[in-house]
Structures are given as C-alpha cells and as structure tokens.
C-alpha cells in the first residue's frame, strides 16, 4: 500500500491532499470497509445507537398495545412531538440530495467526498421521519388507505388535502434518493468486489455491483443517467419540503397560513441538513483519519451554506413578525403576541438564540476553520431547528381563534423515548453503513486527480 500523504501539506482551498494516486485513494477508502478488525470506537458508537433503537421498538410496542393516548397530543394540540420530529427529520434528510444533486449541477467538485454519506444520512433520516406519521395514524396497518387503489369502500384519497400530497412527495423522495444513492454505489461495489480477498465479500459486493466492469459505453450512459437524476432530484428536494410547508400553510390557522412558508421551510431544511452533515463529518473524519479527503475547505464551504440558509430562515422569522403587525389582523397580531410573551415564549427566544444569533459567528473565517467550534455550532443549529418546528406547531395550535378551546401541551415520557429511539435508529443504520459500504465515493475521488483528465485528438485541432 502506498504511503498516504500527511495532513500538514494541505493548503487552504484544496479539496484533496496532494500526493494521492488512483491506488492510494482506492486503498484508503476501501480499507475502512475491508478492514480485518472493527475499531473499538465503531463498536461503542454502534452499541449506543443499537440500544436507543431498542428503546424505539419498546415505545412502538407499547404504542400499538395502548394507542397514541400515551403521547401528549390533545385537543387543541392534535399535532405534537410526532409532527415536530417528522419535520425535523425530513429537514435533515434534505442535505444529502442537495449536496449530491444541486452541487453536481453547479459543478462544485468539493461535493465529491461528502456526497455519499450525506445521501446515506438522507435515507436514514427519511426513514425516521416516515415512522411518525405512520404511527400517528393510530392503526398503522391500514396505511395503504392513503394510496389510490380501487376498493370495496369505493373511496379515493382526498386530493385537495396536503397530507395526501405529503404521501406522494415523501414516498417519491425516498424512492428517488434510494435509487440515486444505489446508482452512485455501483462502480464502487465493483471496486470492492475486485479488491475482496474473501469469497463472502466477493459474492456480497459482486451481487450489488451487478456485473459492472467500467465499460466506456456503460460509463457514458451512467453519467447521463446520473446527471438526469440530479436534474430531477433538485426540483424534487425543493418540492418535498414545500409540500411539508403546505401541510401547515394550506390551512387557515394563524401562524400556519403564511405565504412565505414554502421557501422558508426549504431554506430551513437545508440549514438543518448541513448542520447534521457537519455534526457527522467532523467526528467521522477524525475517527477514520479522512482529513485528506474531507478537508478544512469542505467544512468552510458547508459553514458558508449554513450561514446563508440561516440568514434566510432569520428573514422568515422577521417578515412574519412585520407582516403580522402590518396586516392589522387581530388573530395574526394575537398569535405574534402569544409567541413573544405567551407561556411558550422561552421556546421562541431559545430558537432565536440558536438559529439567528449563534450562527452569526460563521461570518468569521477563524470560526469556519475551527472544526470543533463548527461541531458545537452545528449541534446548536440542530437544536434550534427542532425548537422552530415546536414553536410553529405547538404555539400556533394551543391558542387559535376560540379562547374557550385554548389549552396547553407538553410531551410525555413516551414522546421523548420515541424521539430518542429514532435518533438511535438513525445512528445504528449510519454505523452499519460506515462498516459495510464505502463512506466516500471512490470513483469520483479518482476524477479529482489531474491524471484523470485526458487530451483528445479533437481538442488538439483548432
């Protein structure tokens, strides 16, 4: 195995450390998967995730036995932790496709080393998100009633309901993300198949590689398909969180019926998604010594995107306040007053501190180049985005038009255990992914080397 270059040679603006060859890239990423020993740190992380996942199964078992009464949902707050967490997870699930698709279309080559695990993160986050509406149905075994199929009840879905749009948007998104991720894996599966010294590895990766052999004709169609998928995934990813925002904005509840919601939700989703990518990337590159591939420049770029989307989200909060006053509408004004001085005001102030104030540090280059400060900031933003959904959902619902039906809400122990449980599911899946599939796209990393670029006859001619 060739000697990998050291981190100190890296300069600002570089997205791959100098001195790598096709072989060293292959070995460095491949060896994470095809290592003889599983590192202790991997076991620690996986077991924590696995334990929390058991908590999820316990909660779901109890939920199925006793019903969703074990949650804190009540009248008037019919949507509580379940929808807060659904939106939180689905938002996190936006960064993967965004990095893979939009940055590909914008020819941002730095995406190469982070797109694979960001896509995996997307899939697991969408899976976690999907659990909430599924179990909120109360009788999840009838979930197929949401789908349009001819049935003996002679009923069809209510096409004017954004909740049905959500079914279509989220299932389409999950399907396309899975395909996009799988397509990206095929050439690397072939690499692992050919690299494998053990027959089980050859069979496992061989099946997944589907007979890929790097033919030029195949590559050509592959690249076309990948680019087309990126072009399709870009509007799709925007539409998904737009439809999530429609779940609220199509209604006439003050605080929900807000026209800025679609772009503001999309910006928030990207914001939380990049925060989660940073939360994962910083420990990951430390754990597997991937600083050659996930450089400080990558962290800088992601921090800039976080700052931008954070400012957009801040714009959303501001314009809501201004328009509520400007409208002169008593319910709009009442909502804002309740947000600012009502019983849940501290949630709102904490949200502003996490999502608006703290990220202003990212204006400073020093902060963007300090991985552990970024790590802490990314955790703060993750928390802030959770609070944002809590403020939007609970604070808008608990006091709407009719004061006689006002009420209060708080999550129960089972709400929290379900939330912790999905976090466990997310990390357990993520650790399994890190162990068995390449976390960084090997073949795309190869194209970053100068040797990957050739001069053709055509170029030589004037």
């Amino acid at each position, binding site marked *: 195995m060739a000697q990998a270059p050291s981190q100190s040679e890296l300069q600002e603006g570089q997205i791959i450390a100098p001195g790598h060859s*096709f*072989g060293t890239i*292959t070995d460095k990423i491949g060896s994470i998967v095809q290592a003889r020993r599983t590192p202790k740190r991997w076991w620690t992380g996986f077991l924590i995730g696995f334990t929390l996942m058991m908590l999820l199964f316990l909660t779901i078992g109890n939920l199925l036995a006793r019903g969703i009464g074990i949650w804190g949902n009540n009248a008037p707050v019919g949507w509580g932790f379940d929808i807060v967490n659904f939106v939180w997870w689905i938002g996190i699930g936006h960064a993967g496709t965004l990095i893979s698709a939009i940055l590909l279309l914008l020819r941002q080559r730095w995406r190469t080393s982070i797109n694979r695990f960001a896509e995996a993160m997307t899939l697991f986050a969408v899976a976690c998100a999907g659990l909430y509406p599924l179990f909120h149905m109360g009788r999840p075994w009838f979930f197929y009633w949401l789908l*349009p199929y001819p049935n003996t009840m*002679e*009923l*069809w879905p*209510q*096409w*004017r309901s*954004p909740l049905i749009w959500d079914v*279509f*948007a989220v299932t*389409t998104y999950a*399907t*396309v993300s899975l*395909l996009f991720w799988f*397509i990206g894996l*095929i*050439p690397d599966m*072939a*690499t692992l*198949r*050919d*690299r494998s010294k053990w027959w089980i590895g050859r069979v496992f990766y061989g099946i997944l590689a*589907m*007979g*890929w*052999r*790097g*033919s*030029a*004709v*195949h*590559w*050509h*169609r*592959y690249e*076309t*398909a990948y680019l*087309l*998928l990126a072009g*399709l995934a870009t509007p*799709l990813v925007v*539409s998904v969180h*737009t*439809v999530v925002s429609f779940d609220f904005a199509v209604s006439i509840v003050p605080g929900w019926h807000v026209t800025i919601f679609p772009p503001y939700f999309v910006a928030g989703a990207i914001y939380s998604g990049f925060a989660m990518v940073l939360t994962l990337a910083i420990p990951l590159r430390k754990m597997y010594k991937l600083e050659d591939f996930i450089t400080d420049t990558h962290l800088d770029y992601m921090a800039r995107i976080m700052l931008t989307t954070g400012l957009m989200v801040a714009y959303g909060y501001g314009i809501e306040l201004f328009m509520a006053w400007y409208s002169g509408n008593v319910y709009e004004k009442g909502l804002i007053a309740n947000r600012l001085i009502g019983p849940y005001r501290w949630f709102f102030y904490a949200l502003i501190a996490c999502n608006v104030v703290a990220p202003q540090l990212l204006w400073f280059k020093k902060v963007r180049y300090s991985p552990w400060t970024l790590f802490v900031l990314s955790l703060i933003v993750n928390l802030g985005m959770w609070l944002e959904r809590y403020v939007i959902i609970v604070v808008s619902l608990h006091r709407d038009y009719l004061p006689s039906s006002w009420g209060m809400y708080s999550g129960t122990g089972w709400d929290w255990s379900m939330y912790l449980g999905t976090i466990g599911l997310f990390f357990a899946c993520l650790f399994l992914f890190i162990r068995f599939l390449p976390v960084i796209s090997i*073949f*795309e990393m*190869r*194209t970053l080397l100068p*040797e*990957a*670029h*050739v*001069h*053709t*006859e*055509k*170029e030589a001619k004037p």
Partner: protein
Amino acid sequence: MIPQELPPYGLVAEFDSAQALVVAAEKARDAGYQKMDGYSPFPIEGLMDALGHKANILPLLVLIGGVVGGLIGYSLQYYTSIYSYPLNVGGRPYNSWPMFIPVTFECTILGAALTAVFGMLGLNGLPEPYHPLFHVERFALASRDRFFLAIRAVDPKFDLIQTRKFLESLGAKEVTEVPQ
C-alpha cells in the same frame, strides 16, 4: 452438445494511464476497428468519441417517462374527482387544478427518475453476472488504477495475430486473449 473449443471473445490490452487508453482507442478507431470497448476505473471524458460510439437515447426516454408519469398523475386525480366520486370540498370546483399540481409534479419526477435508473441499467444490460472479461486475472484492476481496451473477435477486421501485434504497437503493457 458443447463444442470442444469456442472461438475467443477477443483480445484485451492493458494500459497505464487514461491518456494512453484514449490515444490507443483513437488509433484503433482510425485503423478501422468497430467492435471494441474501453474499460476504466472512472468515467473518461472523450473516450466515447475516441471509440467512435454515438450518443445515447436515454434523455429522450427519460422525457417520455416524465410526461407519462405526469399524465397518469393528473388523470388519476381528474377521473376520481370528476367521474368516480365527485365530492364537494369547501366549495372548490371538482377540477381544482391548482391543488392537483403537487401530486402531478411528484408523479412526473417519479416516472422520469425510474426511467433514468432502469433505462440506464437496461440499456447497459445490467445486471450481467457473467462476462468473458472476468476470466482475465489482471482485469480486476480495471476497477482500481488500470485501463483496458478490448477488441472483440466479431469485429470484421479482427485477426488473432494481426490484432495482437497492432495492440502491442500501441504501447500496451500486456495483451491477453479472452476466452468465450
């Protein structure tokens, strides 16, 4: 009955760099070879041109897939809301087209994306568990850091000895005969 000896699949030549493969492909194309293919661990811009292959029809298929998906999405909503079970919801018209757009959009994307993925796999003939080239031991490096050019025996210009000489003259590191 299995014949005693099948004709070979062709010859495969190994090269050190992407540049060498492209130059070799260009020369082979100019020499009149048609049934050939290059193999590399990553996509190489210009290799398709060098091999003399034409552009593909995938974009057209994807466009058709998207249009069909969108039409199915909208007509499903139209049929169920206007013919099958007309239902007055909040005084909106039966054909509330603005509210039918989200589902139509998702169906368009789904149709196009499924076509892109399965169209690509289908046109490439994948999954393909067996391929003659897998017999060549060094071909495993095609997924690592080596570059290969294969000329098939079905090519009209193919001749086991002449073609081997030709490939060697292109600076191939090693030329191997591939059994069927």
